[in-house]
């Protein structure tokens, strides 16, 4: 009926709103600093969010499937710890990258396995692994840090194509395209939306819901591994408290992108836009010297605001319609 039509119209409008917000932020940023619009500077600013954004892509799929993963930040710390330990034992950069992705994938698989095999809510399992993964990093590192990496390791997170575009931004954009195709152009994506909307109906129509969930958690873990490799390479050190707060930021970006936290709806374009909105906002706040902890306050408000706004809007319109009807 026309209810679905109006819902799509709303989604389109949400993405339009995001574009407008993004333009406004860029405008304010360019006022705050004359160097902001310099292409070198613009591309550099992407480095502060590219790694996180890789996890956001796979987190989008997890959330559309009615799940949630609170362990991503801890997973990043775990992968980085594995890399640091292997680097001490003299492994080259390529092996470190591979190891990080493997460790992340294994950790994601572990999440998926416990969640689907024992039929427990994702939230409580990932609260457990949140402690476990970072806990392992603490056991290995204590109050120490791994800082000895191969000479060419920093190229990964600090290198540029044509001396302009950071590799990690390129990788992120490539992944974003791949995730777009996966979510909106394949049967896998259609099935994901189906079971995100109604898991029981999807199951009865032959979709192997738990198998999908398992693999999306695995994919999320793999993205954590990849992000950990770039992050570690960029900052050149592994500390057990690294990437703290990324879980909340990643979830906030997904939700701000218009993905329903109840599952079943959302677009990759919206998420991509919200990644840029948050990235440019962070960068702008950095330009005017706002401390990092204040950034988490902004993210917290955005997270709640992004969900509350459409609900309040709907309640208001319902209320108006009721009054008009009465």
């Amino acid at each position, binding site marked *: 009926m026309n209810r679905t039509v109006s819902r799509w119209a709303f989604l389109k409008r949400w993405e339009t709103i995001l574009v407008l917000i993004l333009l406004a932020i860029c405008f304010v940023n360019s006022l705050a600093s004359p160097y902001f619009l310099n292409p070198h500077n613009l591309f550099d600013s992407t480095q502060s969010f590219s790694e996180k954004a890789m996890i956001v892509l796979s987190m989008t799929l997890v959330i559309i499937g009615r799940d949630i993963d609170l362990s991503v930040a801890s997973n990043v710390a775990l992968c980085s710890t594995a890399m640091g330990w292997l680097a001490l034992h003299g492994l080259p950069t390529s092996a470190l990258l591979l190891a990080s992705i493997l460790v992340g994938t294994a950790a994601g698989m572990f999440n998926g396995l416990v969640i689907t095999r024992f039929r427990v809510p994702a939230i409580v399992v990932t609260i457990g692994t949140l402690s476990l993964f970072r806990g392992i990093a*603490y056991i290995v590192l204590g109050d120490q840090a791994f800082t000895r990496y191969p000479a060419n390791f920093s190229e990964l997170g600090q290198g540029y194509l044509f001396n302009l575009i950071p590799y990690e931004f390129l990788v992120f954009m490539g992944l974003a395209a791949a995730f777009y195709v996966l979510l909106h152009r394949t049967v896998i994506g259609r099935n994901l939306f189906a079971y995100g909307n109604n898991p029981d109906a999807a199951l009865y129509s032959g979709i192997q819901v738990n198998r999908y969930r398992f693999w999306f958690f695995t994919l999320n873990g793999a993205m954590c591994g990849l992000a950990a490799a770039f992050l570690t390479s960029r900052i050149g050190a592994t500390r057990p408290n690294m990437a703290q707060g990324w879980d909340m930021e990643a979830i906030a970006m997904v939700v701000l992108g218009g993905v329903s*936290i*109840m599952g079943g709806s959302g677009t990759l374009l919206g998420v991509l836009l919200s990644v840029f909105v948050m990235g440019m906002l962070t960068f702008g706040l950095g330009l005017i010297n706002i401390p990092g902890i204040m950034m988490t306050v902004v993210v917290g408000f955005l997270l709640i605001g992004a969900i509350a706004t459409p609900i309040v809007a709907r309640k208001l319109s319902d209320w108006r319609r009721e009054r008009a009807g009465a």
Partner: protein
Amino acid sequence: MSKSPLKTGPNRDVILGLIVAALLVLIAIRAPVFMSSGSLDTLVTDGALLGMMAVAQMLPILTGGIDLSMPANMAFTGMATALLSKAHPAMPVLATVAIALAIGLVLGAFNGCFIAYLGIPPIVVTLGTMSIYRGAVFMLSRGAWVNAQDFGKPYLAFPMGRLLGLTHIFWIAALLIAAAYVFLNHMQKGRELYALGGNPPAAKYVGINNTHNKMLIYLLTGLASGLCGYLWVARYAIAYTEIALGFELQTVAACVIGGVSIAGGRGSVPGTLLGAAFLVIIFNALPIINVSPFWQMAISGTVVLAAVIINSRGERSQGKVILEPERGTSAKVAS
């Protein structure tokens, strides 16, 4: 099949109680100093704080929710009262407690409005307010610490004062936990919470007001956080931005170990207390048996996972199973 001894209920509590007792005996054999009066006193006071917060955490979990913002609320309330005590050293304890409760209540109400009236999942709201409140601590203190010598005398003296040999913190906790037990088991409102978590649509049909009960829950967790924020700061005689960081995981862990179902509707005060005791005993024993405190995080994670897996066996036989293999997703975040 439903006779699994590990499912929630008095049986499960007895088994968990035996495990906790065995744990105590093992540690006492390995390191007799653990059973010294000084060590036990620390254990009881630490346990009182975790016990109070875990029982508070149980309320939202019973209804299928969660409150991750409690430690941030504690940190804010703790810092606010600490700064007040610094400015007015003679402030009476009663005023401090009243202010702590009031601040905690306001922060809890903020959560409650979004959760109860707008229907936003508790996990999202409290994940957001967790960082908002934590950032607010930083704004309030400008990142500075309040150290032991800055506090007023009564502020520090009351929580660590003693009655019958035990700290006031212990007695406050005992009183509140007993009140929670009576509330949940013998009062209509308390029983409504179980109904709400066990079967929300059915609860609605029998006339239980979802909105008011949810609001009530987050007001209660707010009050508990406010009070514990003051007690925590006074106990350690220091206030800084990162107070109780990560404590939400321990409260959830205590609940899960104690047999509270994260999907809602199941859980008991004694179980949760035993879960808290289990964690506190392990954490306090680590340095005594020469294990680095850096193991804490991994241990609590492992214990949570183990408890979740064991609980899942007890819960699975619920309801009528229509299709045996692959039952799809159970609700991830109940609203």
